[in-house]
C-alpha cells in the first residue's frame, strides 16, 4: 500500500477541518492550510503557497514521512491528552507535551521547556523516521522498548509503528535465544518471580528476570505490557510531566492509615530516613522517590534518578514501617560482650552481606570473607550460649 490514501486522508482532513483547526492541519512540523488562494504547505525546511489540490498531492507525495506520521498519530493512535499517547510519543522521541494539532510545530523548542529526567531533545519527523527504520530504543526501569516502522507494509499503512519489549540485560542477546511473547498479559507471569524463583512483591524492584521478548506489539499492547510490568508508572510519569503529580509525603500517608497500620505515624523522624535508605534507593526500587518526610522537610537519602516517580510510600514500606515502629518503641540498653577486633568487624561484615543481598555470592571456601558460612558458624559456635543467644551482659539496669 502506498502513501496516496494517506495523502487523500490528510487533504480531506484539511478541508473538513477534521482536526479542529478550521481548514488546516498542523502536526509535528507539517502545516497545511486551505485559504482563498489555494493550499499552503509548510515544513521546517520548505514552504509552498497557492497550490491547487493536484499540486498539493504531488508535494505531499514527496513528504511521505510527514504524511504517514500525521496519519499514525492522528488516526491510528489518537487518544489526545492521554498518558498512553504521551508515552508512545516519548518512545520515539517525538515532542511529548505539546502534541495537539492546535498550533503545535513539533520542533525541538517544544520540549526544551519540559524539565524532566526522561525528556531529552526531541527529534524532527525526518530524523525520527531514520531512527525508526533501524529501531529506536528507550529504557523504562529494566525494560528496553524499541519503536520501529512496520517492515512489510502489505497489511499496514506505511508509517505504522510496532514495538518490541525486552529486558535491558538482553539488549545484545539474539532473539532466537529469548522466549518470545505477543500477549501483554504474559508480562504478569514474567514479573512474578525473580531469577532465583523468589516472589517479587514489589514490581519495580530491580530483580526482573531476563530471557524473554515481546515483539511486534501495537502501541496499545505496548502500554498494556509496560503497565503489567510496572503498574501505574506511565500514568504517574505523565502527571509529573504535566506538573500535576500529587505527591503524598510520609506524614500524609502514615496518618491516613488505620487498623494494624494505625501505629506507623509514631515512627521517629530519623527512622524514616533509615527506612528510605533501606527500601527506596535505586538498588531496591527503580521508582524515583519524590515523597519526603513532609512538605518542606526532605529526607537525606537519594531518591534515585529513574524516569518514573514514586508518589507516596508503597504498601511494602507501610508494612515494614509497622515492624520498625514497634521495634523503635523499645528502650536502648548497653551490653557488654567479649569479642576480638576481627570478630567485632565480622559482625559488620555479616550485616553488610545480608543488606546487600550478597550471601549467595560468597564462595564456599572463601574463609577470608567474614560473611562466609563457615566463618559465621564458627562465630556462632564460639560466642553463642546454650540458649542460642549471643553471650552478652546488659549493664545499664
Amino acid at each position, binding site marked *: 500500500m502506498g502513501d496516496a490514501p494517506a495523502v487523500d486522508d490528510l487533504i480531506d482532513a484539511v478541508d473538513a477541518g477534521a482536526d479542529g483547526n478550521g481548514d488546516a492541519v498542523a502536526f509535528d512540523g507539517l502545516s497545511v492550510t486551505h485559504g482563498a488562494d489555494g493550499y499552503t504547505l509548510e515544513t521546517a525546511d520548505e514552504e509552498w503557497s497557492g497550490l491547487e489540490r493536484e499540486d498539493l498531492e504531488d508535494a505531499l507525495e514527496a513528504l511521505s514521512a510527514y504524511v504517514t506520521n500525521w496519519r499514525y498519530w492522528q488516526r491510528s493512535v489518537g487518544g489526545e491528552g492521554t498518558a498512553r499517547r504521551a508515552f508512545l510519543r516519548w518512545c520515539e522521541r517525538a515532542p511529548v507535551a505539546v502534541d495537539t494539532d492546535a498550533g503545535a510545530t513539533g520542533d525541538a523548542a517544544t520540549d526544551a521547556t519540559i524539565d524532566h529526567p526522561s525528556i531529552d531533545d526531541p527529534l524532527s519527523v525526518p530524523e525520527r523516521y531514520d531512527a525508526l527504520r533501524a529501531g529506536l530504543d528507550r529504557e523504562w526501569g529494566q525494560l528496553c522498548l524499541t519503536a520501529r516502522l512496520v517492515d512489510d507494509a502489505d497489511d499496514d499503512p506505511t508509517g505504522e509503528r510496532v514495538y518490541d519489549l525486552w529486558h535491558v540485560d538482553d539488549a545484545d542477546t539474539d532473539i532466537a535465544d529469548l522466549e518470545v511473547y505477543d500477549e501483554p498479559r504474559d508480562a504478569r507471569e514474567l514479573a512474578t518471580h525473580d531469577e532465583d524463583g523468589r*516472589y517479587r512483591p514489589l514490581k519495580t524492584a530491580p530483580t526482573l528476570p531476563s530471557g524473554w521478548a515481546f515483539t511486534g506489539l501495537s502501541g496499545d499492547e505496548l502500554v498494556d505490557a509496560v503497565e503489567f510490568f510496572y503498574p501505574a508508572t506511565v500514568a504517574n510519569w505523565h502527571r509529573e510531566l504535566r506538573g500535576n503529580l500529587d505527591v503524598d509525603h510520609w506524614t500524609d500517608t502514615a496518618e491516613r492509615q*488505620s487498623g494494624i497500620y494505625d501505629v506507623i505515624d509514631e515512627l521517629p523522624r530519623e527512622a524514616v530516613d533509615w527506612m528510605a535508605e533501606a527500601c527506596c534507593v535505586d538498588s531496591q526500587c527503580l521508582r524515583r522517590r519524590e515523597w519526603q518526610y513532609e512538605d518542606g522537610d526532605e529526607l537525606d537519602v537519594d531518591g534515585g534518578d529513574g524516569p518514573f516517580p514514586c508518589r507516596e510510600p508503597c504498601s511494602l514500606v507501610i508494612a515494614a514501617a509497622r515492624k520498625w515502629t514497634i521495634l523503635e518503641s523499645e528502650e536502648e540498653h548497653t551490653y557488654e560482650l567479649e569479642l576480638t577486633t576481627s570478630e567485632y568487624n565480622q559482625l559488620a561484615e555479616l550485616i553488610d552481606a545480608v543488606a546487600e543481598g550478597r550471601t549467595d555470592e560468597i564462595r564456599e571456601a572463601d574463609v577470608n570473607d567474614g560473611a562466609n558460612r563457615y566463618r559465621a558458624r564458627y562465630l556462632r559456635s564460639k560466642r553463642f550460649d546454650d540458649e542460642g543467644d549471643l553471650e552478652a551482659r546488659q549493664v545499664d539496669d
Partner: protein
Amino acid sequence: MQALVIAAHGSHLNPNASDPTYAHADTVRETGAFDEVREAFWKEEPHFREVIRTLEADEVFVVPLFISEGYFTEQVIPRELRLDDWDPERWDSDGTSASQATLAVDDVDKTVHYCGPVGTHDAMTDVIVQRAESVTEDPDVGEGFGLAVVGHGTERNENSAKAIEYHTDRIREQDRFDEVKALFMDEEPEVDDVTDYFETDDVVVVPLFVADGYHTQEDIPEDMGLTEDYRLGWDVPGEVDGHRIWYAGAVGTEGLMADVILERAVDAGADVGDALEAVRQSVTLTGDGDGDATRPNAEPGD
C-alpha cells in the same frame, strides 16, 4: 467508555493470592464488555490508590473481590480510592445488601460506581453450588450429599458470618442437598467438628474465601482432620469419622466468580451486552475448577 476495576487484597508473601483476581479479570476481558479492565490491590500493584488514574474511561465500576461488607470494603478501599463523600450509609445495607454508590474521586475527573463485595451478591450462591459440582465432578450433585459453607466467623467482622448464613439459607431453600450448614473457623458451629453436624456420608465443604491461602490450604484441612499436616496434602474425597469429605478449597477460584463480578457491575448500571451469557457459557463448559484441590500451594499469612 466504561472501565472495570476488580479490587482485591493481594499478598506480599504469597504469589498465588492474586491468581483468582487475574483469572476472573481475564474472563471479563475476553467478553470485551469493558473498554478497560484492571486488577487493583491493597498489597500488590497497581495499588487501590493509583488504579483509577491508569484508566482512560470516564465511568468506572469498582467491584471488591471480598467476601463481606466490613473494614476493607467500607473503610480501606473507599479511602484509598479517594472516593469523595463516601460513607457506608451510601450503601444503605443491612450487612449483606449493598449494591452500589455513585461517587466522584478527588484525583481525577471520573465517575466511580463503587459496588458491594462479590461475596454478598445473590449470584454467589450459584458459585458455591458450582464449586460443589466442580469438586465432585458431578453437575447434579445434591442428593445424598451434605454441603458445609465455611467462613471466618464474627471475630473480626459480624458481617462475615451474615454472608455465610445468607448463602447457606438460600442453598437450603433450593432443596438440592440433603443438608446445608454454615460452619465457622472461630465460633460455633466450628468446622473442626464438621462430621458432627451431618447425617449424610458425603459432605462437600466449600470455604467462602476469595483466594487459597493459609486458612483454606492449611488451617481448615488440618482442623477437619482431613490431614495431619497440610504439607502432606489430602485426598478428595477424604475419609473423616466415617464421612467422605469433599474439600473444595476457596470458592473464589471458581470460574463462575467472573459472572458475579459482572452482575455487580450490571447492577450498578454497566452496559455489558451479552457478556453475562458468554461468561456463564465459557466457565460452565470448561468447568474451570482448578481440579487439584489436594495440592497445598500457599504460604502462611500474607
